[in-house]
């Protein structure tokens, strides 16, 4: 399992490297600052990190032979993972339809992308502009690298949820005993790994993407 995780490190390492190489290289918008919603993503990040804690509690319960607690914590881990995925689906959808609204008379402070839209659509006589300027994998380099990186992370979380549910199902159908904790240990290792990768993605992609100076 450790060997597999080492291999997976290279996998995400390459994806993140690609993202960083192409950071700020997009020719057209939307750019990170236009689409990222840090408070929302922080909530989903918090949920995912808490799921790591419930994973630990589940493992500890199994080691002590408390099967019921083990099942409860394992189920909550899977539920939190699924919640994270729901957030991601919601977020992807939001990005894809990204709604732009500009007051053409008094535009105020606009981002670079909004300025582009302002120049294009706020022609003479137009007072107010509204429209959908979504980000898809085909839009620009940011969309390409962002969706691929986070999409593969989402796929890993999905696999993790299925795996955890599989262990849960197994424990109901065939029973599980403390001496079989390796079954859970491997799933837990994988789960923590996926969480750690998310911490890196959240920092490098989301936080660095929004704050100036990076």
């Amino acid at each position, binding site marked *: 399992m450790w*060997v*597999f995780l*080492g*291999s*997976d490190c*290279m*996998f995400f390492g*390459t*994806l993140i490297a*690609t993202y960083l*190489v*192409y950071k700020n*290289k*997009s*020719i057209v918008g939307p750019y990170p600052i236009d689409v990222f919603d840090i408070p929302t993503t922080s909530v989903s990040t918090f949920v995912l990190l808490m799921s790591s804690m419930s994973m630990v509690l589940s493992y500890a319960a199994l080691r002590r032979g408390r099967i019921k607690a083990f099942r409860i914590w394992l189920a909550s881990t899977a539920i939190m993972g699924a919640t994270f995925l729901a957030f991601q689906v919601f977020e992807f959808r939001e990005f894809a339809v990204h709604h732009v609204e500009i007051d053409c008379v008094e535009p105020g402070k606009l981002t670079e992308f909004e300025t582009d839209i302002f120049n294009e659509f706020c022609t003479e006589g137009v007072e107010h502009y509204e429209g959908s300027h979504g980000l898809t*994998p*085909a839009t*620009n*380099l940011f*969309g*390409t*690298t962002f*969706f*691929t990186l986070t999409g593969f992370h989402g796929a890993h979380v999905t696999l993790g949820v299925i795996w955890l549910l599989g262990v849960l199902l197994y424990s109901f*159908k*065939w029973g599980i005993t403390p001496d079989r904790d390796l079954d859970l240990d491997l799933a837990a290792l994988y789960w923590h790994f996926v969480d750690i990768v998310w911490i890196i993605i959240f920092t490098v992609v989301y936080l660095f993407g929004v704050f100036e100076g990076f």
Partner: protein
Amino acid sequence: MTTLALPLPRPTHPTGIWSWITTIDHKRIGILYGVTAFILFLTGGVEALLMRVQLAAPEQDIVSAEVFNQLFTMHGTTMIFLAIMPLGAAFFNFVIPLQIGARDVAFPRLNAFSYWTFLAGAIMLKLSWFLGGAPNAGWFGYAPLTGEAYNPGHGIDFWMMSLQILGIASLAAAFNFIVTIINMRAPGMTLMRMPLFTWMTLVTSILLVLAFPVITVALIELMFDRFYGTNFFVTQAGASPVLWQHLFWVFGHPEVYILILPALGIVSEIIPTFSKKPLFGYPVVVLSGVIIGFLGWMVWSHHMFTVGLGPVANSVFAATTMAIAVPTGVKIFNYMGTMWGGSIDFKTPMLYAIGFVFLFIIGGLSGVMHSSAASDAQQQDTYFIIAHIHYVLFGGSIMALLGGIYYWFPKITGRFLDEKMGQITFWIIFIGMNITFFPMHFLGLDGMPRRINTYPDGMGWDLWNAVATAGVVFLFVGLAMFTVSAIRSWRNGKRASGDPWDGRTLEWSIASPPPEYNFEEIPTVHDRDDWWSTKRRRAPAAVPVAGGSGENGHDIHLPQPSYWPAVVSIGLLVGGYGLIFNVAVAAIGGAIAMIGIYAWSFEPVNEPDDGAAH
């Protein structure tokens, strides 16, 4: 244990074609790997032959420029991914469990899956010849040249799907061998008592596990670009034309060592055996293998000296490239030190091993020549590079692998490969190899570029091109003789005992061919070269006969064969095909693979009624 009710009963065929399809015996999988890879090696050879015929004289038009591009792409991809790597894998499979005193690899069904997936990838690649043209962008497939805009046909699609599938196979195999070598060694076999071939397999597997994800991501990016319109390599959207080169060579250079380290391992077994001496400086040879594996990660940009990365990057990569010659040189000196003062027995495997040392030195020296960025600027993309790579891959890897075949053939089949024929074949291949590839040094320094389908008269390249093509004839005669002799010897060659070469490592302590369970009793290891010292340490009467009594094996419990690994591989093949042509077919392939994985994971290692007794 509960078995889920699945329509297929557990396969039980002891012989026949189904027994091969469902086998999970590492020895049989090794043979499958070897035979398949050798056939694919010959197809790659035919592709090369066509190119050499085209280039034999100036301004010929035997194959068109388009076909020529496809030929060199397929030749490179075939030889690297479908011939040398799986031939190495054949030896890993057959030899490693025997060398470490184990009954099988750690995950036997995963091992079968690796083989079938490798076969699926090979079929995928070769299918392209019949379904709209082979890939044509070189084995390195530089994007954006491979992008949809410049390469609209399906050739590149086949190439990238095939490499993805082969990557899955290689990764599965590498995980398997790392776990096997770390966990399944016989009692007493510490790491520093491991045979060199096992050591080099371990290093190779670690390289594979770390290098393949990088090419996987690069291929995924290319695939998304081609299938879903993303912009990874679309320069109009601001993409970097150098990204692919970096990703490819971050994988590609460790890949070079993935190709050569098994060869070094094989030679490290053959030379001590036929010199009747322990390997000179064992710890240093192990260490230099590990250092090669480590430094192999720091040299990738020497493939990109002419890209314009700047003098600092070029100097750093030139320095690391020169540094990697040191551990390689250390190994060569240790081989010579092993032979020095030994009573050398010039049997065919030994000839190949010495041929390896000789040719690999030449290839290594030209390698050091273009490690200097300044001189590489002259040599880049010329036949000089072709000469170099063939001296290290043909003169290096292939010579060692052929030597390995002669060395382990008695163990695999219980019969010797014909010795007289072997000696003649060796000299034909050795001479043919030099006639073919040595003139390419001159051609390259004379400025003949790679990847051209023809050249004008009067460039001064006519003579050496004709000579090189003549050399290919020698190679083909030699390989044909080898093939014939291998088939004949397999059927009715001279019988070999369990220990025909007076071997040093554990695989020679059992019968040839080994029984299905390998070892009647798992041996306890006291020494490096344990079988050798067992033979020497004990009084002649007490030396165990290689092969044991052969009567105590009936109670040994082995995992049972399975259909599912092959089913998952078929799913991958269908899925890959579907992604190129039709999404519905891809879904079917995915479904087949999922069913296979599901059935596999709920299939007990042994049927309960059978397993309960033990």
